[in-house]
């Protein structure tokens, strides 16, 4: 009989104990699996968002995040200068602003406005209607709005949006409904051209940009583009997507990475403790049986293998169940965390990567090995004659 078969029979003699062990490992394993997903989830998800725009380099005036620091001055000349660099395929200036719109029922509501050129790449995704045009038919520049704003205000292509934050109120014509990569759940967002932006914010300084979106040439790549920008304009701050993510990893996203590390450590320790306890107690209750097997000719190695197989069955059974359980739990936890205000609705905290599955497997194998170590030593060092004598007397 193979060690695995033998271990299976040993466990089936105590089905309640084995089942509880598997359930315990499954629940704690699910937590461990989730923490592995959480450790890099935000970074992976944020990378997807950044890459979905089609621009792989960001340029700002200072180290501050776009919109949080001084704007890039002389934006038109800067854009022109950077566009001439051979490593760069495209440079698009972007402005951010917050205004209020006249909403239904005589109320006002805040709307985030992005000023950019007519769409070149993936600045937003057109869902309905037409994209922005440079013109301003009837003195009303084009505006694209997100689904939340369109739904709550009953807007469609051709509708008029009136800003209440300017006196007199400025009007825009809705050309289409779009999805912005970074729009938050419930947030009202709109996109306009740079000319439309000055229409919406008449007191805003002209010829400035909060951010320059840069697409590198495929043959050059983002790193070469960043170097070229830094060389040409050392007063500006250029970041590739990797650099942005590295910064977020060490600052803004670090809390969840640390929480995941702490909880993963606790979950691993818990799994180890549970399986070690079950196996140790099981061996202690079967000392006579182990001694009898040794007397019948079972080698120490074979006894160790049997216990290792028992550990593998407990941890493996729980570990396999932990994957679907963990995915289910991750959906629940993700939905809780995504309720945070001002968070892009497409951002996820828990993202499954092949790496997570591999790490989960590695953790479980390690747990099974370590958990089996102590009971295996206990069983292998058992004095055969003395144990059999003690058992027969008792």
């Amino acid at each position, binding site marked *: 009989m193979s060690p695995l078969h033998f271990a299976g029979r040993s466990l089936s003699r105590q089905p309640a104990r084995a089942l*509880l062990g598997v359930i315990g490992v499954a629940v704690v394993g699910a937590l461990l699996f989730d923490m592995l997903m959480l450790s890099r989830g935000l970074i992976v998800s944020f990378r997807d968002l950044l890459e979905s725009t089609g621009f792989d380099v960001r340029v700002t005036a200072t180290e501050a995040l776009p919109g949080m620091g001084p704007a890039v001055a002389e934006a038109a000349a800067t854009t022109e200068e950077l566009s001439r660099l051979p490593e760069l395929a495209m440079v698009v200036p972007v402005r951010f602003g917050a205004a209020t719109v006249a909403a239904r029922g005589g109320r006002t509501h805040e709307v985030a406005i992005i000023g950019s050129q007519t769409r070149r790449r993936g600045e937003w995704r057109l869902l309905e209607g037409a994209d922005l045009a440079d013109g301003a038919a009837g003195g009303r520049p084009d505006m694209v709005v997100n689904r939340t704003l369109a739904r709550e205000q009953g807007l469609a292509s051709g509708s008029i949006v009136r800003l209440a934050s300017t006196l007199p109120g400025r009007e825009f014509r809705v050309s289409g409904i779009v999805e912005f990569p970074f729009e938050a759940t419930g947030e009202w967002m709109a996109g306009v051209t740079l000319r439309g932006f000055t229409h919406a914010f008449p007191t805003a300084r002209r010829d400035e940009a909060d951010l320059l979106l840069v697409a590198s040439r495929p043959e050059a790549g983002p790193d070469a583009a960043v170097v070229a920008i830094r060389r040409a304009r050392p007063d500006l701050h250029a970041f590739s997507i990797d650099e942005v993510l590295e910064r977020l990893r060490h600052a803004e996203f670090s809390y969840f990475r640390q929480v995941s590390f702490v909880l993963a450590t606790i979950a691993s320790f818990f799994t180890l403790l549970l399986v070690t306890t079950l196996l140790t107690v099981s061996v202690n209750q079967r000392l006579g049986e182990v001694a009898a097997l040794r007397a019948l000719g079972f080698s120490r190695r074979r006894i160790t293998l049997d216990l290792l197989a028992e550990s593998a069955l407990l941890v493996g059974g729980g570990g396999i169940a932990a994957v679907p359980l963990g995915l289910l739990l991750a959906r629940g936890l993700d939905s809780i965390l995504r309720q945070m205000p001002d968070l892009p609705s497409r951002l996820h905290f828990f993202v499954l990567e092949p790496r997570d599955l591999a790490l989960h497997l590695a953790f479980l194998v390690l747990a099974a090995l370590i958990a089996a170590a102590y009971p295996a030593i206990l069983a292998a060092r058992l004095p055969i004659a003395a144990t059999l004598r003690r058992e027969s007397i008792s």
Partner: protein
Amino acid sequence: MVRAPLLLLLPCLAAAAAGAARAAGPEGERLPEILVSRGLLRERRLAVGQVVALSADPRGAGARRFRIAGVYEPTPDPSRFTAKRLEARMHLPDLLALTAEPGEAGAADSVSAINIALQDASDAGAFARELGARAPGISVVRAAAGDDQHFVIIERFHLAISVVTMIGSTAFLLALMVIRADERREVAGLLRLLGLRRRRILLQALLEGLCIAAAGAVFGVLFAAATQGAVNAFFRWRYDTTLVFVRVTPAIAARCIAVALPLGVMAGLLASWTLLRRPVLDLLRR
């Protein structure tokens, strides 16, 4: 001194400016004063009394000189605790003079926000509505630090994690209780043979479970209370903040014990019952 509303702008100014110029002003020169945050003072190696140049332009154009009058600890903000607090505070006219474009109409008489303290805080809603109606271009937001949505969400997340951990712990506890009950199978059979009723033996199991659960819960609370200082010290060091991350309050301790005790007792009872429902001879059979 200008307070909270300007903080969002100031870090940028301070960070941009402190990068370059440090100038020792001529003796006796009257310069406008600023306060700098502890983080900015340390990061840029500034000192109280030092003269620094601040500019709203990233290239340092139009810089103005200020004397550092003191250092302050920024009010901890849970929603921004991972961000470096490189901030400075200055008098409003100084800030307006620093940021206004030459010839920009009205710039010297405009602010980003105004903080208002009401006589009666419960009037905030009505006041916001009335002001919004009277001045349509103004956005009126009620300041409510106590119910910060970030906190609520993080609390919900931690609660969910606690529930999962508790389910795992319950399975562990139940497995241990089953093992323990199994070890005492023969003793239970003998007690039954001696005439003790199932209820009596169950009561004993219940009391034992209660003692074990109480000891475990108290140990857990004491362990958490003893280690909270280390956890807080680590996160305070890591994020350079004065925020408190972990605090074992009497309410939390009571909640832990209130959850742990019934769970321990139920696990003990369940494990014992699965054993005691068997016939006596089954219990004594080896």
